[in-house]
């Protein structure tokens, strides 16, 4: 009995010591994944994902509680990049995926109040007081923070129109 207790204790102690030393040797600082993912996010903290800011979303994605595709402004390309980095597979985008949305201004009802300009985190809206505003499509992150600001509902989110240079063949219908 004593031999059994003693031997197991010694065994445990020796192995524990070895692992302790190994832990010193192979120590890994923090979780680099969260920082890496956060660096990929748009950083506009728009909150469309339901997390408090991009940092929160990055932490949730790294922890596996949020999908890599949870960021609407980042769109498919961001989702794919993150999924690749994490080594997980992404649910294929459905046919109803309209692609990224960007803000658009109905010029006939814009009153030039500049509220949207102040709300825009990327300075994607041009225009001055009492002038009709305009959205720079390339700079719009699609965060939709301007939509609620507009007093006349002139702001709408719309899919980016496909141009000739960007068009490509759809995937052939499944066979077999």
């Amino acid at each position, binding site marked *: 009995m004593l031999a*059994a207790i003693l031997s*197991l204790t010694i*065994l445990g102690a020796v*192995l524990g010591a070895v692992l302790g030393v*190994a832990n010193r*040797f192979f*120590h*890994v600082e923090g979780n*680099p994944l969260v920082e890496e993912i956060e660096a990929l996010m748009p950083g506009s903290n728009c909150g469309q994902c339901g997390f408090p800011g991009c940092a929160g979303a990055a932490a949730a994605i790294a922890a596996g509680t949020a999908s890599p595709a949870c960021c609407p402004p980042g769109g498919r390309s961001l989702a794919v990049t993150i999924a690749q980095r994490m*080594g997980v597979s992404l649910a294929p985008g459905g046919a109803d995926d309209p692609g990224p949305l960007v803000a658009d201004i109905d010029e006939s009802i814009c009153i030039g109040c500049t509220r949207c300009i102040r709300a825009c985190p990327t300075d994607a809206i041009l225009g001055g007081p009492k002038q009709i505003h305009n959205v720079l499509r390339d700079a719009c992150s699609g965060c939709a923070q301007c939509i609620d600001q507009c007093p006349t509902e002139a702001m709408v989110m719309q899919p980016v129109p496909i141009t000739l240079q960007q068009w490509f063949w759809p995937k052939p219908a499944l066979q077999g």
Partner: protein
Amino acid sequence: MNEYLLLLLSTALINNVVLVKFLGLCPTMGVSKSVDAALGMGLATTFVITLAAAASWMLEHWLLAPFELGFLRILSFILVIAAAVQFTEMAIRKTSPALYESLGIYLPLITTNCAVLGVALLNVQQGYGFLKSVLFGFGSALGFTIVLLIFAGLRERLALASVPAAFSGAPAAFITISLLSLAFMGFSGLIPA
């Protein structure tokens, strides 16, 4: 020399740990979705099995047998295996974070890979010497890695096939591994037991 070679061949192919003895099926099904991950898992398991085979031999012959502690065998073997797995896990996390992530939960679960404990216990049962024990462990692990690799290759192709909904995923994988097992039966009788 010939004897050792035959032992290696026999454990790796003819008495394959996965397809003939049906040990270690959990990681075989779990980590066979990509060839790269399968290779990583195979190498990690090879390391653990070989180490565990050596350590368990020492434990058996220097501790358990002299003090007649045979009843502690499983307990102490698991202890050694768990320590080896912990060590491997730390090492992989440090050296290859990508592999660490792709292996996920299956890395710590090498501890519960019955092939590892099975090999250690079979060594005792067969009464192998030290060198043979290590070789038996290594051969088994080699067999495990080979099957994992082949199976991962097959599953990568399976992922591209239009498998009927009722069979997609695990069912098709199980049928595939059973057919693979059928193919391995061709090795039977190669070396008289």
